[in-house]
C-alpha cells in the first residue's frame, strides 16, 4: 500500500533515526513534547492545507457518453463544503479508475444483447494535488437509450484524510453498497418499466407496419414487390427482432435477483449479507423487492406510440437524469442513505475508530451497558458480521499479544479488508515488500523524538505537496495486502495506535508523493474475497496499519504517550478512554487549535484514579495557547465552524474561567457570567433538550451536557454529594426560577443518572406542579420550578414533606440539601481541578469512570457466593458481612461508595430479571439517613 515516493520519504526519515537520541532520558512524567507545530501557528488537527474543501463530502459523478465525466451532485449539497475544490477535475479522476469495464452488448456466440449484472467496484484513490482522497464506488445503471444500455456512475466519499478512507474502507463499502443497491433496485424497476413501454411501442409499431404492408400488398397485385414494400418488410423484420431482443432484456432484468444469488455463491455469506441490508434499507419507507411482481409490472395507462425506423442520433437526445433513471422514491432514499453516510463518517478518523471501539466494547457489556449509555440502535449488523468473521484470528492474537492491544484490533478493520482482483493493477509489489521489511526493522528501533527535525520535515512536506505532478499511481493491490498480512513481526509493537500517529503519518505521506493521484486500492467486489483470506485479514491489517502508521510518527508516539503507556496496563476499560479523549479533541470539533495538544493525556485517570497534575511546562504552554485562541476566535476563517458548537465554547470569558484552573476561587464570578451569557445564547434553538427532553442524545447534546457538568463541578463545591445522590438513586431536585438554567443543569447532570433500562433516562427536565411520591419513583433527576407566588407553597411543602427521598439543589440560593458523602469515587469522577476542558472529553471521562463502576456493580451482582448462604446454617448477617467486606476490600469502595454500587446492583438485578423491559418503573429505594445543608 505504500508507493514508491513514500519509500523515499521513509528512507529519509531513517537517516534521522540513525543518530540515536542520546540525551539522558527524562522521567516519563516530564517528557511532554513540545508542540511541534506551535511556531507555525498551525493547527495540527486542522484539515491539511492541500485540501480545498472544508470537510468530507460525497460526490456523485457520471461518465456521460455525451460530455464525458461530469459531477452530478454533492452531499451535503452546499457549495461551502467543497469550496474551490474542482469537482469536474475530480470527477474525471474518479471516473477514470473504473477497472471494472462492464460489458454490455452482443457477446460473441450470443444472438441477443446480454445484460451484465456487474458487481460494483470499489476503489480508493488519492489526489494529493487536490489534497483529496476518495473512496469511489462505481456502479452501472441501465438505460435503454444509452450506449450499450449502460450508464456508468460513481459515488465517491471524498476526504482529506487518506487514513480515514483506508481504515474505514469496510464500513464505507458496506454503506455505499446499500446506497448503490438502492439505486440499482430503483434503476432495474425503472428499466423494466421502460422496456415494457418500449415493447408496447414496438408491438404497436409492428401492428402499424403490418397493416401498412398488408394494404400495400393488397394495393399492389402486380406480383412483385416495390422497393417501398421491401423497405417496409425490412422494417417489420427489424421491429420483430427488436421485440425479441427487448423481451429478452426484460426477461433478464426480471430474473435479476435469482441470477445474482446464483452468481455469488462463492462467497455467499458476505454478499447475502450486504444484499440483505440493501434490501432492508429501502424497506424502511418503501415497498421492498419482495413485491417484485408489481415492481416490474408496467403501468396500464401508457399509450404506445409509433417508433421511427431511424433512431435519433445519440447526441441529439437528452440523456435521462439520475433521478429519472431510478425510481424517484428510490432516488430520494439513496440520497437519504448518502447523507446518512456523510453523517456517519463525519469527523476525524480517530474519532470514528474510537467510537467504533466504544460501540464494540459496549456491545460486550450487554448486561450493564443499559445503566449509563444512551442506546442508539444503529444498525450494527456490519460490526457484528465483522466480529464474527474476525473472531478466530482475534482469539489467536489475544493470546499472543500484550493485553493492552486487545480491544483495538477488532475495530481497526480497514485497508486490508478488501483486495483487488484486477491483475493488471499489480504494480511494483516487489519493491514495496522489500521496503516493508526494511522499515519494520527501523520502526522497532526508533524510540526518540526530535521536534526540530520533525518541523523541518513538515516544512518540506508542504513544498512537496505544492509541487506534485499529475499521474496515477496505484498504491495497493491484492498482493500487497496479502503479503503484508503474513508479515507478523509487528507483534513486537506494543504501542497502541494513537490518532496522532495517523495524522502525522498522513502529513508525511502527502509531502513525499510526487504523483498527485494514487489509487490506493481497488476492490470490485467483496464477494471475490476468498473466505480464508477474509478470516485472516483483520489482525493482519491491524498490524499492518499500526505498523505503517508508526513509520511516520513513531517518535511522536514514543514521547507523547507515556501516560498512555503507563495506563495501558490497566486493561480494556482504562485503555479506551485516552484514545477517545484525544480523538474528540482533535477531529470531531475541528477546532483542535483551541486545545493544547497534550491535553488528552492529562485527562486520563491513571491507576489510582487521580487526574494527574500537569507539569509546569505544560501549563505555561497552555496559557500561551489561550492567547492564540482568542485571536483565532475573532478570525473569520473559523466562523464556518461556529455553527458546530455552542456559543459558550467559543466564549473567551468562559474559556478564561475554565482554563485557568489555578484560580478557581475567582472562577465563581466569571463562570457565572459566562454561564448566564451562554444561557442567553442557547436559550432559543440550542437546547435540543427542550424539544426532546429524553431522546437519544446526539454528539452535540453529549458535548454540551459534559460542558455544563464540568461547569457545575467547578462552580459548586458541593457537586460531589449532589452527584452521589444521583448515582445512589436518590432523586435530585434542581430548584430554580429560570427554566433555561434549570433545564441546562438537569441536562448536564443527567449524565450521572443511571438508567432503569434501555429506554429514556429517568430525568424530568422541568416540572412546575408540586411533586408527588410517584415522581420520586419515576424520576431520579427533576427540574422544579420555584414560583414566587404564594401558590408555590404547596410545591415547597411537598418538597419538605418528601425530603427524605430527595436531595434538593437550590439554584437561586446556591444551596444543596442532601446526605453526607465521604467516598472517593465521586471526587475522581468530578474533580473541580480537572484538566479536562472540553465537554465531550469530560463526557467521555465520565462514561469511562461509570463503565468502571458498572463493572464493579456487575461483579458484585453476579458473585454467587456473596448473595447465597454457603450452607444452611449461615445466617443472613454473615452473608451481609461478606457482601460488605467484598465491597470494601475487593472492590475498594469507601463509605458511601458502597451505596452506589449496591444501587447499581439492584438495577442490574431488576433489569436482568425483567421479562418485559420497560414495562414498569422499579421501586423507590431509599435510606433513612440525615441530610445536610451545603452552602457556597
Amino acid at each position: 500500500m505504500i508507493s514508491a515516493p513514500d519509500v523515499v520519504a521513509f528512507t529519509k526519515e531513517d537517516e534521522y533515526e540513525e543518530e540515536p537520541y542520546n540525551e539522558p532520558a527524562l522521567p516519563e512524567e516530564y517528557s511532554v513534547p513540545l508542540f511541534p507545530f506551535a511556531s507555525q501557528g498551525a493547527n495540527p488537527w486542522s484539515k491539511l492545507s492541500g485540501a480545498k474543501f472544508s470537510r468530507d463530502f460525497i460526490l456523485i459523478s457520471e461518465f456521460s457518453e455525451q460530455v464525458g465525466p461530469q459531477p452530478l451532485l454533492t452531499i451535503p449539497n452546499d457549495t461551502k463544503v467543497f469550496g474551490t475544490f474542482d469537482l469536474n477535475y475530480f470527477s474525471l479522476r474518479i471516473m477514470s479508475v473504473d477497472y471494472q469495464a462492464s460489458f454490455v452488448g452482443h457477446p460473441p456466440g450470443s444472438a441477443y444483447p446480454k445484460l451484465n449484472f456487474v458487481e460494483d467496484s470499489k476503489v480508493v484513490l488519492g489526489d494529493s494535488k487536490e489534497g483529496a482522497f476518495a473512496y469511489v464506488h462505481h456502479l452501472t445503471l441501465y438505460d435503454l437509450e444509452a450506449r450499450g444500455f449502460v450508464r456508468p456512475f460513481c459515488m465517491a466519499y471524498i476526504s482529506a484524510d487518506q487514513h480515514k478512507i483506508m481504515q474505514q474502507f469496510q464500513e464505507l463499502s458496506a454503506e455505499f453498497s446499500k446506497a448503490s443497491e438502492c439505486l440499482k433496485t430503483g434503476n432495474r424497476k425503472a428499466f423494466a418499466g421502460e422496456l415494457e413501454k418500449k415493447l408496447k411501442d414496438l408491438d404497436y409499431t409492428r401492428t402499424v407496419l403490418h397493416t401498412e404492408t398488408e394494404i400495400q400488398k393488397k394495393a399492389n397485385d402486380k406480383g412483385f414487390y416495390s422497393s417501398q414494400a421491401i423497405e417496409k418488410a425490412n422494417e417489420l423484420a427489424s421491429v420483430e427482432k427488436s421485440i425479441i431482443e427487448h423481451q429478452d432484456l426484460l426477461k433478464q432484468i426480471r430474473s435479476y435477483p435469482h441470477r445474482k444469488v446464483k452468481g455469488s455463491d462463492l462467497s455467499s455469506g458476505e454478499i447475502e449479507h450486504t444484499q440483505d441490508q440493501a434490501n432492508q434499507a429501502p424497506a424502511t419507507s418503501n415497498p421492498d423487492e419482495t413485491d417484485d411482481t408489481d415492481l416490474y409490472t408496467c403501468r396500464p395507462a401508457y399509450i404506445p406510440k409509433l417508433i421511427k425506423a431511424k433512431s435519433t442520433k445519440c447526441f441529439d437526445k437528452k440523456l435521462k437524469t439520475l433521478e429519472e433513471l431510478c425510481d424517484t422514491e428510490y432516488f430520494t432514499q439513496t440520497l437519504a442513505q448518502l447523507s446518512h453516510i456523510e453523517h456517519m463518517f463525519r469527523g476525524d478518523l480517530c474519532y470514528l475508530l474510537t467510537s467504533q471501539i466504544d460501540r464494540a466494547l459496549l456491545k460486550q457489556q450487554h448486561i450493564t451497558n443499559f445503566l449509563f449509555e444512551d442506546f442508539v440502535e444503529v444498525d450494527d449488523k456490519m460490526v457484528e458480521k465483522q466480529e464474527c468473521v474476525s473472531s478466530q484470528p482475534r482469539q489467536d492474537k489475544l493470546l499472543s499479544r500484550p493485553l493492552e492491544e486487545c480491544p483495538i484490533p477488532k475495530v481497526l478493520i480497514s485497508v486490508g479488508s478488501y483486495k483487488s482482483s484486477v491483475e493488471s493493477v499489480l504494480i511494483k509489489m516487489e519493491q514495496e515488500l522489500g521496503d516493508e521489511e526494511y522499515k519494520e526493522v527501523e520502526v522497532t528501533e526508533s524510540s526518540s523524538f526530535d521536534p526540530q527535525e520533525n518541523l523541518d520535515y513538515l516544512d518540506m512536506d508542504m513544498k512537496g505537496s505544492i509541487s506534485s505532478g499529475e499521474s496515477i499511481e496505484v498504491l495497493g493491490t491484492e498482493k500487497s495486502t496479502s503479503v503484508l498480512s503474513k508479515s507478523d513481526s509487528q507483534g513486537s509493537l506494543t504501542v497502541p495506535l494513537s490518532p496522532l500517529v495517523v495524522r502525522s503519518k498522513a502529513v508525511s505521506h502527502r509531502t513525499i508523493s510526487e504523483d498527485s493521484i494514487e489509487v490506493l486500492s481497488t476492490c470490485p467486489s467483496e464477494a471475490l474475497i476468498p473466505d480464508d483470506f477474509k478470516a485472516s485479514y483483520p489482525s493482519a491489517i491491524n498490524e499492518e496499519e499500526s505498523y505503517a502508521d508508526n513509520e511516520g510518527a513513531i517518535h511522536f508516539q514514543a514521547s507523547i504517550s507515556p501516560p498512555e503507556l503507563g495506563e495501558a496496563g490497566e486493561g480494556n476499560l482504562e485503555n479506551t478512554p485516552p484514545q477517545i479523549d484525544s480523538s474528540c479533541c482533535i477531529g470531531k470539533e475541528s477546532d483542535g487549535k483551541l486545545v493544547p495538544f497534550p491535553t488528552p493525556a492529562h485527562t486520563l485517570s491513571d491507576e489510582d484514579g487521580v487526574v494527574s497534575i500537569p507539569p509546569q511546562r505544560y501549563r505555561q504552554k497552555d496559557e500561551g495557547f489561550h492567547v492564540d485562541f482568542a485571536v483565532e476566535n475573532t478570525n473569520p476563517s473559523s466562523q464556518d465552524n461556529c455553527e458546530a458548537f455552542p456559543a459558550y465554547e467559543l466564549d473567551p470569558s468562559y474559556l478564561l474561567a475554565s482554563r485557568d484552573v489555578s484560580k478557581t476561587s475567582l472562577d465563581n464570578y466569571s463562570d457565572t457570567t459566562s454561564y448566564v451569557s451562554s444561557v442567553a445564547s442557547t436559550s432559543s434553538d440550542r437546547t435540543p433538550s427542550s424539544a426532546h427532553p429524553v431522546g437519544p442524545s446526539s454528539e452535540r447534546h453529549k458535548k454540551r451536557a459534559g460542558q455544563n457538568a464540568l461547569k457545575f463541578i467547578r462552580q459548586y463545591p458541593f457537586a460531589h454529594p449532589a452527584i452521589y445522590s444521583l448515582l445512589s438513586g436518590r432523586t435530585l431536585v434542581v430548584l430554580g426560577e429560570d427554566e433555561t438554567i434549570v433545564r441546562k443543569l438537569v441536562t448536564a447532570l443527567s449524565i450521572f443518572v443511571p438508567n432503569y433500562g434501555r429506554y429514556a433516562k429517568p430525568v424530568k427536565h422541568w416540572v412546575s406542579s408540586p411533586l408527588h411520591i410517584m415522581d420520586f419513583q419515576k424520576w431520579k433527576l427533576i427540574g422544579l420550578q420555584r414560583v414566587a407566588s404564594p401558590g408555590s407553597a404547596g410545591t415547597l411543602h411537598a418538597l419538605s414533606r418528601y425530603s427524605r427521598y430527595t436531595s434538593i439543589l437550590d439554584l437561586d440560593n446556591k444551596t444543596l440539601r442532601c446526605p453526607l458523602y465521604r467516598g472517593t469515587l465521586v471526587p475522581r469522577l468530578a474533580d473541580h481541578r480537572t484538566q479536562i476542558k472540553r465537554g465531550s472529553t469530560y463526557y467521555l471521562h465520565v462514561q469511562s469512570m461509570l463503565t468502571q463502576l458498572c463493572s464493579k456493580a456487575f461483579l458484585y451482582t453476579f458473585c454467587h457466593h456473596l448473595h447465597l448462604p454457603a450452607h444452611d446454617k449461615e445466617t443472613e448477617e454473615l452473608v451481609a458481612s461478606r457482601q460488605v467486606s467484598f465491597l470494601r476490600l475487593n472492590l475498594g469502595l469507601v463509605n458511601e461508595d458502597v451505596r452506589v454500587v449496591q444501587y447499581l446492583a439492584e438495577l442490574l438485578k431488576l433489569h436482568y430479571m425483567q421479562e418485559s423491559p420497560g414495562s414498569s418503573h422499579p421501586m423507590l429505594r431509599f435510606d433513612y439517613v440525615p441530610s445536610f445543608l451545603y452552602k457556597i
Partner: protein
Amino acid sequence: KSPLQTIGEEQTQNPYTELLVLKAHHDIVRFLVQLDDYRFASAGDDGIVVIWNAQTGEKLLELSGHTQKITAIITFPSLESCEEKNQLILTASADRTVWDCDTGRQVQRVSCFQSTVKCLTVLKRLDIWLSGGNDLCVWNRKLDLLCKTSHLSDTGISALVEIPKNCVIAAVGKELIIFRLVAPTEGSLEWEIIEVKRLLDHQDNILSLVNVNDKSFVTGSHVGELIIWDVLDWTMQAYERNFWDPSPQLDTQQEIKLCQKQNDISIHHFTCDEENVFAAVGRGLYVYNLQMKRVIACQKTAHDSNVLHIAKLPNRQLISCSEDGSVRIWELREKQQLTAEPVPTGFFNMWGFGRVNKQASQPVKKQQENATLCSLELIGDLIGHSSSVEMFLYFEDHGLVTCSADHLIILWKNGERESGLRSLKLFQKLEENGDLYLAV
C-alpha cells in the same frame, strides 16, 4: 401546638427502605383486605375492587361494577370441606348492592336493600354472612336471604362482631344489640334472628367494636369510653374513660368547644393481643392492659391528626396510620423507672382552655402518672401519602400496604430483604438459563 414526637431522618430500626406506588384507583381507597399469603384486595370510593400481588405490586384483577362508593368489603373463604377453593369477596356499596366477586367474575348481585350496607361479617362456622345497614340481614353462600331483623335505627349498624353461642353484637348508635341466630333444626326449617339484649352503657355513639379473645370483646365510643365486656354473659368487665373527663362546671360555650374537640378522644380503632388492648384515641395511642385493667402506655399525640387504623405486629411493634398522611411504627417498651418522667399533659391542655383546663387536668395527670408502666417509642415513620392514610395491611413476608385518600396504595418493603430475594431470583434465573455453571 402539642408536642408531636418526631424521629428525624435517621431511622435505623425502620426496615422499610423500599416502596412501590400502586396506582389503579381514582378516588379514595378506604379498604384493604388480605386474600391469602400474597394477595390483597383494595376498594374505595371509586367503586372498583383491585386485586394485587403483594410481592411484586402487580395488579392482578380489577373488579368493577359498583356505581357508588364501596362501604364494606369482606372475604368469604370457602369451607374447609369444599373441594374447589374459590374465595369470594363480598363488597357492599352505597348503591345498595352486594357483590360476590370471584376472580374477576361477578358471581351475583343483590340489590334488595333498603339502606346502605355499612358492615359485613362472615360466620364461617355456619357458612353464612350478615350485612348490617338499618337492619340486619342473614345470607347464605348462595346469596339467599335467610332472615332479617326489623328496622333497627336510621343511623344503621356501625359495627358487627360475632361472639360465641351463635350470637352477634351490633353497634347501633349508642346501643349494643345482641342477636342470636337460630339455625334451621328439625322443628323449623327457617333461619331466625332474635334480639337478645340491648346494652346501653355507652354515652355516645359506638365507633369501634372488636373481639379481644374468647372471653371478652371491647367497644369504644365517640367520647372516649372504652368498655370491655364479657363475651358470654355480656356484662361489663372494665370501664375506662380516662381519655375524657367531662367536667361538670363547663358552661355551654365551653361545651361547644369541647364538642369540637371530641374528635380528639373518639376511639376509632382497636387492636388487641393477649395482654393488651391498643386503642386509637383521637390523635393518640393508648395501651390498655387487660389484667391490670388500666392504661399502661400512651402516646397522646401520636399523629398530627386522627389515628384511623392501628395494628399490632408480632415483635411488640404497633403501627398506626392517620389522617395526617403518615404511618408510624411504635415499639412498646417496658419503662425502667415507674415515675422517672412525668407524663406530659399535652393531651389535656389541648382541649381545655384557660382556668378550667388547669383544674381539669391536674387530677387526671396524677392518675396517669402511676398508670403508665410502659412507653411507646417511635421507631420510624413512613411518609409517602399526600393525604389521609385510611388503612393498612401487614404482610409478614411482603411488608406493609397502605391505602390513602390520595388514591394511591403504597407497598412498603424491607429493602434489604428484597435485595436478597432479588439476588436469589437472579441466580435462579441464571441457573435456569444455564449460565451459572458455564465456566465449569
